[in-house]
Every structure is written in C-alpha cells, then in structure tokens.
C-alpha cells in the first residue's frame, strides 16, 4: 500500500515535470486538486477563489516551494470547472481522486458545492482544506478530512448584536429594551446567519419585533420595510447574498427608512457604496478579512502587503477591493504548505494529522481548527461605511475607527 502511494506521487510528479520543464527543475511538483465554479452562477466568486489559489501557489514556489527534509516541491493545482452545480462538483472530485490521483484537495466555491464534495473526499480519506464554504451544516457531520480556514456563517452578523448592546449601555439603555428587526433570505446560508443572530439576541434578552424570511427569487422587501417604519426598531439586520444587499440598500433609501443601526451582509459583493452611496452611509458590513487588519505572516507579509502584491500580480483588481474570497483561498494553500512541512511527508494521513494540529498566524488571521474542522481562532470583523469607505469598527481589538451611532 505504501509502495503504491509512493508510485502514485512520483508518477504524478513526473507527469507534471514533463509538462513544465526547466523553470523549477530543482524541485519536484506536487499537484493539488480543486473543482471550482468557472462558469455558472458562482463564476464571479469562483474566479476570485481560483486567483487566490494561483497567487499563493506562485508566492510559495517563488519562495522555494514546500520543503520536506532536503527535498522541495513546487505546488501546482489541477482545476476542473464544476459549472456551479453540486452534482457536477461531486463527479469531478471523484475524477480528481481516481483518475488524476490527487491526494490533497482544495475546496470549491460556496457551501453548497463544498457540501457535495466533502462526502467524496471523506470516502477516499483525502484531506481537503476549503476556504469558501461557511455553512455550519458542514461542521456537524463528523467529517474528519475537512478543514475550513474561514469563520462559519452563524458568526457573520452575531457581532452586530453585541455591538448594539454595547451602544445601548453607553446610551443608558438596558440591552433588554432593544428592538431588533430581522430579514433573512430563505436559503441555507442566510438562515445560518440568522441562527447566530438569534442566539446572541437571546443571550442579551433583546426583543425581536420583525422576523421575515425573504423569498429566494424575489427582489422586493417593501412590506418588511413598511413594518420597520411602523415598529421603529433599534437595529435592522438583513442578509440575502448580493441581491438582498442591493435590494435592502435601494429600498431603505427609497422608502426613507430611518433606523439608528443597520447591519447587512454582502455589501462589497453588491457594491452598495458605488450604487447607493448616500443611503448606505453608516451601514455595518461583516467581513472575513480586510486589508486594513493588522494580521501578518512570513510569506505574504501584512494584510495590506498581500493586497498590494495581489493587485500587482492580477492587475484587473487594481481599482477595486481585493475580495476576502481571494484572501482566504490563498490562506488555504498556505495552510497546506505549513501542514505538509510539519508532517514531513506527503502521506495523506500524516498531513491530515498535521492539519488538526495547525495553530498559525497568517495575513488572513489566526488559524486553528476545531474538532469539527472549522477555524475557531479568527473572528469576523464588522466594518462601517463611513464617507463611502469601509472602516473596521468591531471587535474593538482590531478597530481602526470609532463607530458612528446613530447613523444619520
């Protein structure tokens, strides 16, 4: 068995070497696999993730590759396009493992695709480090080979609740007097976000005055916002992918809705500052990562350095924010490098064991996996839109700016 494994690795390495001669002749090639959405409805973010993988691979190879003893390996990634469909993703994972003999996998884009692929990697005992699936349903199935560098979805807006409690205390109000209005899209991701919010609301004893679930295929929330006008909550939380963010931003403006604190997800993806600049002033937006955070590591440098170098390598990002989807994809590759070097071998079981012990600082944040495989060392950060810019206001340890409250 050990023999066949070695054979597999050397043949993969040899094939890859033939394909890319000369340049890195000193190191062998280690190929990771990923099914990723290059076409279909997730294609935009699929490309963001792929670019993140590619950038990390390039950085690692430029810095001498992955080192095991006195040998070194240059990383490469074999991609297949999963067309944004879970069934295709699972098929391609089988193909990567059975035909291409991939032993280490990088994740696809979105929770849905990750959910489809995780059972496959689990079946073949292939470690997968994923960066784009945040649903908590991924981490209650007892998967042993799944590791996620990002914060899970129920953490997305939970911090806005504690922030509201903090503000209330300062204003001389009890948290129990705070009225919260919630509008979440009726899909697994947004309902995860909702679950986290509800947990925290219970913890503080706040009152939920509106709890609407927005239909998936409709971009209208006027009835919900009419209720908001009638009930005057202290905090409005909305989550519904970029469609929800765009709809909320547009209709809050159109309907002249005044709430002292508003928190929504997917602000950047929906480009709300560009499209609804006047309305969204003071909105709180959670993010996995921001280039202004003080995280750093040896490979990528600081978060802002990552931002700068990535824009250099991919000029199409020059005039926009580097999305966190890209940063976390890079972090996933970096975690693999670290774990392989710690394991001191390419053996997938040993790499898997090394992954469980990862405890590292990266430009993307601290990474330490729980028993279930999710990253428990990195918090979600809340940014407030101030003067058209995203400024980090919570948690206070990373805050670069004061919270403006109430928003105008």
């Amino acid at each position, binding site marked *: 068995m050990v023999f066949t494994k070695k054979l597999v690795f050397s043949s993969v390495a040899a094939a890859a070497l033939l394909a890319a001669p000369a340049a890195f002749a000193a190191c062998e090639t280690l190929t990771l696999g990923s099914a990723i959405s290059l076409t*279909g409805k997730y294609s935009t973010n699929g490309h963001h993730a792929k670019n993140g993988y590619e950038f990390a691979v390039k950085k690692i190879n430029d810095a001498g590759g992955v080192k095991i003893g006195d040998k070194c390996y240059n990383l490469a990634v074999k991609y297949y396009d999963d067309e944004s469909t879970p069934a295709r993703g699972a098929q391609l994972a089988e193909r990567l493992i059975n035909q291409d003999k991939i032993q280490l996998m990088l994740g696809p884009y979105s929770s849905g695709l990750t959910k489809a692929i995780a059972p496959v990697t689990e079946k073949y005992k292939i470690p997968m480090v994923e960066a784009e699936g945040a649903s908590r349903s991924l981490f209650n199935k007892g998967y042993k080979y799944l590791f996620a560098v990002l914060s899970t979805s129920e953490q997305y807006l939970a911090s806005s609740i504690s922030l509201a409690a903090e503000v209330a205390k300062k204003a001389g109000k009890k948290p129990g007097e705070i009225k919260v209005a919630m509008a979440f899209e009726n899909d697994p991701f947004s309902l995860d976000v909702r679950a986290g919010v509800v947990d925290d609301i219970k913890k503080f004893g706040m009152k939920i005055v509106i709890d609407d679930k927005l239909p998936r*295929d409709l971009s209208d929330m*006027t009835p919900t916002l009419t209720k908001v006008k009638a009930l005057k909550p202290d905090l409005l939380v909305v989550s519904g992918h970029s*469609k929800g963010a765009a709809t909320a931003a547009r209709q809050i403006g*159109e309907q002249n809705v005044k709430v002292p604190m508003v928190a929504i997800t997917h602000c950047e993806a929906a480009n709300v500052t560009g499209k609804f600049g006047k309305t969204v002033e003071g909105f709180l937006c959670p993010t996995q990562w921001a280039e202004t955070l003080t995280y750093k590591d040896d490979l990528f440098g600081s978060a802002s350095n990552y931002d700068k170098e990535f824009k250099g390598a991919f000029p199409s990002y020059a005039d926009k924010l580097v999305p966190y989807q890209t940063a976390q994809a890079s972090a996933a590759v970096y975690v693999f490098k670290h774990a392989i070097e710690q394991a001191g071998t390419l053996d997938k079981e040993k790499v898997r064991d090394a992954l469980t012990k990862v405890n590292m600082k990266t430009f993307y944040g601290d990474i330490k996996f729980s028993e279930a495989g999710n990253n428990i060392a990195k918090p979600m950060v809340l940014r407030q839109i101030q003067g058209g810019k995203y400024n980090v206001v919570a948690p206070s340890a990373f805050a670069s700016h004061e919270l403006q409250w109430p928003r105008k």
Partner: protein
Amino acid sequence: MSQILGNLSILWQAPVFNLSLLIDGLMIGAVFALSAYGLALVWGVMNVKNLAQGDFVMIGGYIAWVMSLNGIHPLFGVPVAFVALWGFGWVIYVLIIRRVIDQDLFTSLLATFGLAIVIEQVLNILFTSDTQTADAGFDSFLLFDGLVTIPQVKLIGFILAAILALAVILFMKNSRMGQAIRATAQDERAARVMGIDTDKVYAFTFSLNAAICGAAGALISMIWVIQPFFGITYSIRAFVVVTAAGFGNLPGVIAAGLGMGVIEQFGGFILGAEFQQAIVVGLLLLVLIVRQVQQARLRQVVQ
C-alpha cells in the same frame, strides 16, 4: 401568531400604512402585468407557452443597465430595449418558434426552455453572475410625514407600463394588424382562408411579446435588481397571472397583475415575507377551483 395579530393591529391603528402597501402593490403589479400581457398574447394567439419569457425581461434589463454604464439615462433604455427585443423576438421566431408552432405542447415547452437556458448562460458569460442595478438617480415623494413614500422611479414605471398597455389594447382593437391577430387567435384556419398571412401574424405577435418584455426588463433594472438567472421569477409570475385571468382576456390580465402585486404586499406585511409567494399561488389555486366548479355547472347545462 402574536406577530400576525400585531401586524394586523398596526394596519388598524395606523391606516396610513394600508395606503402605503396599496400604492407599492399597484406599482409592483404593473410591471408583472406587462410581462404577463406579452405571454397572454403569445399563448392566446399562437398557443406557444413561452418559458423564456422572464429571460427576455432580463435581456431588456441588461440593455438599460449597459446604457446607464455608458452615461445614458436608463429611462431611455425602455424604448431602446423595446426596439432591440422586437428584433430579437423576430429572429427567435424565424429560427425556432416557427418550427415548433405546429407541434404538440411539449415541443414548444422544450424549445423555449432550451432557449431560456441559452439566454441565461450567454448573459452570464457577457455580464458575469453579479447582481446589477441601473441607477436612475430619482428621489422619492414623501407623504404623511414620510410614512408613505412613492419612489419616483416606480411611479414612472407604473405610468410607462400603463401607457404601453393602453397602446397595445388600442392597437389590437383598431389597427389592421390587431384585427388580423385577433382573427388568427379565434380560428387560425379561417383566418388563412380570409387571406390573412398567419405566419406574418405569428412573427409580429412574438416580436411584440419580446418587445413588451424588454421594456418591462428596462423598468425592472431601475426598480429592482437584475441577474442572468433571475428571469425565471418573471416567467413564473407571468404564468400565474395569465392562468388566473385567462389568456383571452387582456384587461383581465392587467387587473390580475395589479391585484397580485397588492395581495403580495399585504400578505408580506401581515404574515411575513416568506408567505408572499405562497399567497399568490394559493390564490391561483382558489381561482382554478372556482373556475372548475363554474365550468362543471356549465357542462351539466349543456348535457
């Protein structure tokens, strides 16, 4: 349950919110009515159930959006999308619809379903899957201390939808082509015997439908958001409206569209947004049951 009662009591104690919901519903319903209107034409005249209806809407939306990116006000997208989709509809008719029109129901369903997929993917390749919205730069009218708001862009959408619907109704009543379309809808063979070029009538009807959808899409890009895969929403709504109103009944389609908009708003307010669609579909079911009972009675009389 207590939230539902609470919401009802808001409507009771502050009646101004009823007005707000009614106005919003009418303005939203007008846009739904437009795409349903086109479907009623195509369904009634050609007996083609066009599943790509919503995707025509999205194309219109992207036309207005692209124009707004290039510094042209998206309102001009309404006529431009109307004309562009007219041409597109004609090409689609010649390439695809003409070939399936005499076939059975499933052929036309399959063909238009395939067309829908192709349009979605092409839009996705051209414009990526990001959600987009064209900014018309309008404000809102504030009434009753800002409790009732009328977004100007929705009002304009409502007026344009009304003008378009009126123009089409007058056209169908008075023009030569309109008469030919109605004649073909009543009896295709008889129309042909009377010297009507039914192929031309079909091409015209299908193009008109695409054009109306395009105009609706341009409005939607300003009022809500567009995305390559959001077309299906409008297809479904168009089918619900037409099924409820009956396709021979164009004013009925408009009334059903408006009614659907209003009921959605009230349903969403009282029961919660998650029931917005359930109410619409539930209502459709009710209409169908009532119709069934009525027709059963009619059948007995005939017997």
